[in-house]
């Protein structure tokens, strides 16, 4: 078979000139569009070319080149990412607080990883007490106590195929001494069991499929930090009294009415749950029926649907959950006997 010539081939037999031309093109040819994991480790790349030519006596001859084969080596890369969208909020002293991470095999072979945590890092206010690493055994991305398995190094080290990810949870207790707004950092590490090192480090014969294992850009070790943040609300309580005597003054005489004002102000962050204000009627005075108010609104004395009540010796108002920044004000009146 004959082929038409394309352009001048004057340099076709000059090897050096051809190589120079190829080199000139090379600078623009390096987009390296490899997919995340790419060709699986152990894959063989074979190249063989064929030359054809006219035979002197007519017809055509052909010859094949030698077969060049390469085995694709295993690239070891692993990344760890913290998945929580923002600091995980917890109260001081809370246990079982959850940080969520994802471990992804960025290499091109199956790889197992040893997991670890570090809590005594700088750049934070307290060290979380890390209790356990839990693997997302059922693969639903959420922590399921009793279903997802607690990680035990060397026993259930996660193995991932190329591009595969696994969710991992870190459970911690937050110190009682931490105060509102404190942040605590915890780090999850995933270390390739084949090996780690500077990128380019190779381990002969340890790659999947019998080739070499080569450390990629991540060094064969992934890590990510997650943060806890303490939310602690506190309440300031202010009680004041105003006296009105029967004569238009402010003397403490029998028949004077004392109005008590109880102001509860919640500060910090978060919410105080089930905040309740109680106060007793001082001796020598009598509760003035129907005088109980909350934030200016009247409350009945009976223990009923409204949050306030008077029960013989004192008043009680259930404020429920009060968000930080809010002030709830209770008033009631007594008459000096």
């Amino acid at each position: 078979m004959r082929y038409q010539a394309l352009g001048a081939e004057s340099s076709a037999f000059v090897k050096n000139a051809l190589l120079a031309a190829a080199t000139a093109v090379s600078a623009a040819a390096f987009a390296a569009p490899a997919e995340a994991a790419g060709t699986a480790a152990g894959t063989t790349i074979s190249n063989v070319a064929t030359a054809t030519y006219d035979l002197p006596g007519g017809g055509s001859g052909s010859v094949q080149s030698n077969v060049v084969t390469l085995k694709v080596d295993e690239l070891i890369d692993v990344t760890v990412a913290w998945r929580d969208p923002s600091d995980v909020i917890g109260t001081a002293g809370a246990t079982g607080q959850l940080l969520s991470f994802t471990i992804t095999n960025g290499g091109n072979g199956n790889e197992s990883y040893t997991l670890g945590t570090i809590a005594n890092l700088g750049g934070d206010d307290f060290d979380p007490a890390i209790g356990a690493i839990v693997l997302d055994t059922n693969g639903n991305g959420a922590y399921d106590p009793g279903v997802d398995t607690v990680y035990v190094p060397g026993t259930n080290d996660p193995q991932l195929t190329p591009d595969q990810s696994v969710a991992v949870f870190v459970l911690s207790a937050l110190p009682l001494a931490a105060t509102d707004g404190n942040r605590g950092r915890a780090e999850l590490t995933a270390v390739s069991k084949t090996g780690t090192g500077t990128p380019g480090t190779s381990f002969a014969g340890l790659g999947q499929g019998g080739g070499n294992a080569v450390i990629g850009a991540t060094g064969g070790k992934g890590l990510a930090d997650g943060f806890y943040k303490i939310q602690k609300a506190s309440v300031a309580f202010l009680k004041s009294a105003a006296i009105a005597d029967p004569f238009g003054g402010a003397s403490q005489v029998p028949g004077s009415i004392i109005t008590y004002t109880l102001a509860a102000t919640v500060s910090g962050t978060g919410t105080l749950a089930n905040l309740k204000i109680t106060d007793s009627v001082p001796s020598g005075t009598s509760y003035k029926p129907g005088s109980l108010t909350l934030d200016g609104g009247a409350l009945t004395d009976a223990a009923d649907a409204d949050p306030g009540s008077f029960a013989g010796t004192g008043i009680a108002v259930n404020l429920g959950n009060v968000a930080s920044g809010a002030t709830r004000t209770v008033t009631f009146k007594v008459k000096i006997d």
Partner: protein
Amino acid sequence: MRIWIALLALAAPAAAFAAGPEHVSLASHVFVERVKPGPGGKPVTVREAPGIVTPGDRLIFELDYRNVGAEPATGFTITDPIPASVAFTGGESENALFSVDGGRSWGPLGSLRVAGPNGASRPATPADVTHVKWAFARPIPAGAAGSVSFRGVVK
């Protein structure tokens, strides 16, 4: 005859240049192209024998030919299928023809199209190339040798 020559070449790859009893020999080589720190810290591009090969590595496929016969070789072509795990990235020696359909049709890359969904087609890109071929217009004199090459990246 043709089959016999092909079998011989396959059976004795080490003796590549000695193959082809009286006409033409063809030897295939592959190199890895890497960028390394050079003198003064400037990066230099080097070609190496393939030791470690991982996805994303840039390969140079080189084909060395020689007319080992006594007569000029006319109608000379070299055809090389792109290995399955390699994406062609250009960098080919001049006067190459391409196929994006497994070697059924050939042309300059700019003239080729790839069928898409719904009967549509789009211009072919280097990554679509399945075969590369060089057709020599002039006979190769007896004893003359040369080389062609192209580049690819490990997928």
